[in-house]
C-alpha cells in the first residue's frame, strides 16, 4: 500500500468541514481555548440563528437568564412565599419578578446584613444530601447589575458566595420575611404564568 499523503491538521480540519454537514460543537470548555475555529454554519442554520436572535430581541431585551441551584424544599418555600405575598395584596403576579424583587432586596442590604442571611450548611442545597435542581429565571439586567455590585462588595469583605449561592440566600431571606408575617399558603404544583385575583383572596388562575 503506498504511503498516505501527509496533510497538516489545518488542512484535515478544512477538508472535514468542506465534506460534511457541520455537527454542533460540544459545549465549549470553560477556560480552554478552542484549537481550531468553529465549523461554518450551513445556510439553514444561519437562518434559524437569525430568527432566534430576532425573537430573543423582541421578548427579552432588558432581561437575562440567571441560573440558581436550589433545593426542592427551598423552591417550594419560594413558590409558597410568592403566592402568599400576592394573596396578601401584593402586586407581583409573576414568579420571576418575585425572584427579582428578592434579589433587589438582598442587594440593598449591607454586607453585614447579607452575611447574617447566608444560609447555614444544613439549609443549603447540599446539606444532608437534599435533592436540588438548577432553575433558570429571566431577571431584569439592572437587577443583575445590582446583584453583581453587591457581590463585589461582599468579595471585598471576604465573603465568597457563587452567584447561585448568593441568589439562593436572597430567596431564602424573602421566604423568611414572608413567614414572619404569618403562615404560608400551599403553592400549586405548577405555577401559572401570572396570578390573578378571584373572588377568593388566594384563587389562582390555572
Amino acid at each position, binding site marked *: 500500500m503506498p504511503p498516505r499523503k501527509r*496533510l497538516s*491538521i489545518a488542512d*484535515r*480540519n478544512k477538508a472535514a468541514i468542506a465534506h460534511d454537514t457541520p*455537527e454542533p*460543537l460540544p*459545549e465549549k470548555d*470553560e477556560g*480552554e481555548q478552542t484549537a481550531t475555529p468553529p465549523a461554518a454554519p450551513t445556510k439553514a442554520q444561519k437562518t434559524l440563528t437569525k430568527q432566534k436572535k430576532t425573537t430573543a430581541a423582541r421578548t427579552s431585551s432588558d432581561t437575562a437568564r440567571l441560573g440558581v441551584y436550589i433545593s426542592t424544599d427551598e423552591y417550594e418555600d419560594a413558590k409558597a412565599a410568592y403566592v402568599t405575598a400576592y394573596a396578601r395584596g401584593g402586586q407581583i403576579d409573576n414568579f420571576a419578578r418575585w425572584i427579582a424583587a428578592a434579589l433587589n432586596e438582598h442587594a440593598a442590604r449591607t454586607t453585614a446584613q447579607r452575611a447574617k442571611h447566608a444560609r447555614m450548611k444544613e439549609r443549603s442545597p*447540599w446539606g444532608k444530601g437534599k435533592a436540588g435542581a438548577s432553575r433558570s429565571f429571566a431577571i431584569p439586567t439592572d437587577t443583575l447589575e445590582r446583584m453583581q455590585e453587591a457581590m463585589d462588595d461582599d468579595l471585598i469583605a471576604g465573603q465568597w458566595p457563587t452567584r447561585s449561592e448568593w441568589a439562593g440566600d436572597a430567596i431564602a431571606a424573602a421566604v423568611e420575611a414572608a413567614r414572619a408575617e404569618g403562615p404560608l399558603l400551599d403553592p400549586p404544583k405548577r405555577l401559572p404564568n401570572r396570578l390573578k385575583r378571584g373572588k377568593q383572596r388566594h384563587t389562582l388562575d390555572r
Partner: protein
Amino acid sequence: MTIYAVALSKGGSTKTTTAAEIAAALARRGRRVLAIDLDQQGNFSTRLGITNDTEVSAVAADVMTGESSAREAAVPAPSVAGVDVLAGTYDLATLDQRPEVITALRDHLPNVAGEWDDVVIDTPPALGLVTLAALAAADVVVAAVACETEAYDQLDRLVDVITQRVAPIMKPGQRVHWIIPTRHDTRRLLDREVVELLNRDHPGRVTTPVREAVAARDAYTAGQPVSVYAPGSGIADDYAAALAPILDNPHT
C-alpha cells in the same frame, strides 16, 4: 498496557488538562505513551504541542473507522518526550453516525501493545458513540469533576451510562475507577461540599483535589501540560498528588 480514559459529559471540567497530566506523568515514569484525542476541538493534541501546521498521515478519526492503524497515525508530541499522539480533528464530528466505531479502540489497541506501554484517551464533553468507544476500551476510567453542581450532576449520568450501556456487554465490569475533583477553590463553601459529597458517594475512589489556576490556561496557550509549563506550581503539585494513587494502583 494500561488504557486510561478521562471522561465526563460536562464541558469545562478539565478532562483535557487532566488527560495531558496523566500522559506527562506516565512519560516521566519512563512509560511509552499513546495519547488519543477523541475531541474534535483537538485540545488534547494542542496541550501536547500539536499545532495546525503539524503534518500527519492520519488522525484519530481514521483509526476509529479502520482507515488507518494507530502506528501509522501517531506523531510524536512536541511538548512531552515519550508521548505519541493520535490527533483530534473535525473528522471526529461524523463518527456518532457510525455505530461500528464503538468497539474500534477496544479491538484495535491490543494489536499495538508492543508499541506503547500505556494509552491515555481524552473524550469529548458528550456521551455519544465516540465516548462510548473510549469507555469500552479503557482499563481505567477517570472522571475529572470540576467543583460545581453541574459537573457533580453529570457524574451520576456517566456512572449510569457505564453501568447500563458499557458494563453489560462491551466491557464487563466497567466502572468509574477514579474521580479527581478539579478547579477547586478552598475559599468556596460549595467546592468543599462537592468534595465531601464525592467522597461520601464514591468512598475510596476520590483523589485529593486539584486547584483552579491560571497556569492551566497559560499552559494550553503554550501547548504544554501544566506540569511541563509550570513544574513548580501549586496546580502541578496538586496533579502529582492526585495522580499518584491512580498511576500506582490503576485498578482499584
